[in-house]
């Protein structure tokens, strides 16, 4: 049960920063396991998804089984076991957004990207997802690109949003040909 380093411990998939964040986090709670859900999300932010290695490492660091980690992780809709695009586009289509044209916005993203629900573009830059209410009902229709909100959208604003993120990717120097 001890999370202390054993001799046979495999190499960490966490960056030093993430490992430090984990160590600080578990200290805060009365119970170590309370860090599980935040850590799953933070690890996913860094690695891109919950790979087998991530699940194993979190289980080891918290001191629970991999099965327990998976049991919890499969419950939460933001957690995924497959890679998404570098920019995961989440279009809210719940009632308030639907009334303001969310499905038209969603369709436009589909056309522009050429991918369907939960699809990833060939260059790995974008993925598209239809999501439930994201708490931006009064500024509908709204989307999130990773954690960034865009609100009061219209289909015609879609190309501009996409080129904005393509530009960001280029700046980071890891863009495939756009």
């Amino acid at each position, binding site marked *: 049960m001890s999370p202390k380093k054993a001799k046979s411990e495999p190499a960490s998939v966490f960056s030093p920063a993430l490992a430090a964040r984990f160590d600080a986090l578990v200290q*805060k*709670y*009365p*119970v170590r*396991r*309370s*860090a*599980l*859900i*935040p850590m*799953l*999300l933070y690890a996913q932010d860094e690695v891109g998804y919950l790979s087998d290695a991530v699940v194993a490492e979190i289980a080891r660091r*918290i001191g629970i089984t991999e099965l327990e980690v998976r*049991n*919890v992780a499969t*419950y*939460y*809709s*933001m*957690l995924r076991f497959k890679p998404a695009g570098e920019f995961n586009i989440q279009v809210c*289509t*719940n*009632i*308030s957004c*639907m*009334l*303001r*044209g969310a*499905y*038209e916005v969603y*369709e436009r993203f589909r056309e522009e990207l050429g991918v369907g629900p939960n699809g990833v573009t060939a260059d790995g830059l974008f993925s598209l997802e*239809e999501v*439930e*209410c*994201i*708490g*931006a*009902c*009064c*500024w*509908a229709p709204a989307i*999130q690109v990773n*954690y*960034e*909100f865009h*609100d*009061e959208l219209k289909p015609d604003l879609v190309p501009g949003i996409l080129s904005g993120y393509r530009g960001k990717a280029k700046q980071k120097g890891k863009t495939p040909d756009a």
Partner: protein
Amino acid sequence: MPRLVSHPDEVKIVSRRFGMGATNIDRYIELGGYEAVKKCLAQGPDWIVEEMKASGLRGRGGAGFSAGMKWSFVPKQSAKPKYILVNGDESEPGTCKDHLIFLHDPHSVIEGTIVAGLAVGAKMGFIYLRGEYRYLLEIMERAVADAYDRGFLGKNIFGTENEFQIITQTGAGAYEVGEESALMESLEGKRGIPRIKPPFPAVVGLYGGPTVINNAETIATVPHIINMGGAPYAAVGTPRNGGTRLFCISGHVERRGVYELPMGYSLKKMIYDVAGGISGGRKLKAVVPGGSSTPVLLPEEIENVGMDFDQVGKAGSMLGSGGVVVIDDQTCIVEFALRTISFYAHESCGWCIPCREGTDWLKKSLTRFHAGFGTRSDIDNIQYLAENMLGRTFCPLGDAAAMPTIAFVKKFRKEFEDHLNGKPCPYAREGVPQLTVV
């Protein structure tokens, strides 16, 4: 960035500091911040609970239970540590008020949490935000760190013997975690499945200790009540419904936004005056008064309804979470019902069979029905199925899915019947893609 709105009828109490830079701790103090905690440190726990009871503040998450009463249920003596848990897992469709509180006034949440801690004798509080609110979590984390730096949190808050610690926590996407016992499960690192009650959280809650769980808006209101006094706060609202409320007006109205209005404010005025009426000069078809779980109201049903828990209840619906969703006359109610139930089918945690299976069957029936493959008996079956979910689940999610469905069928039976003539939706808006499978 969420747009702020205002209207002359607003009474800004909770939203007083919105747009004033109060995320900065110095600015917050300049605007009267942290005075409530000082007052409470001087007055003591019994006084706090009495003021809270006098305020008539009822839970802003949706259940509308008296906050002061809730606090008074926590036993004075406890072998296990007591906790304050702030529910910022805002996920009820139509609701986006906590979003603005975290964005504009994070210290009010911290201050309210400390006051709640002093009232019940807790030394630790948790502020739980839904996973999607990462940028708001970062604002909260910053505010908590600043409060620690000033000695407002820690071993000796404000230089007294009182200890209070706050931990911010992120969820990872789950509507059900907004239910109080599921929220505790999630915070303990588990699946967000509700607990059987009793025991209630006030007696056995987080980590087995007595726990007060309040909605973020409820907690953000607390410092204002302490500052202005319980009775004056209550006087702003209607009898048994103290104070103001953040109403989130969305859908087919001209000026959508979050408005702080006195409890009991006319729903009709809210739609036609405050929010500027129906978009594009169209007509009102229906309104969902308190988030997607609340039964829909017809235009003739809102004539004399004031927006407080009792009046909306009498009109046949619920005040819920304050999410007012306005629907115009070009909307297909079957489609709206389908989108609503699809949400609950997605979010059901799967523990109770009537909810897990019921939401899924309703979704399938409504999908087929909306696509033009329904039969006459489907209409009654949909209502019958929903009625048999009522009261048969451990948490309110089953009811939350069933109640609006029943209301849609009962109040819009003709629209359902009109879908029987073999064509896909006769109410489809022109040029809008048909919602077939969600």
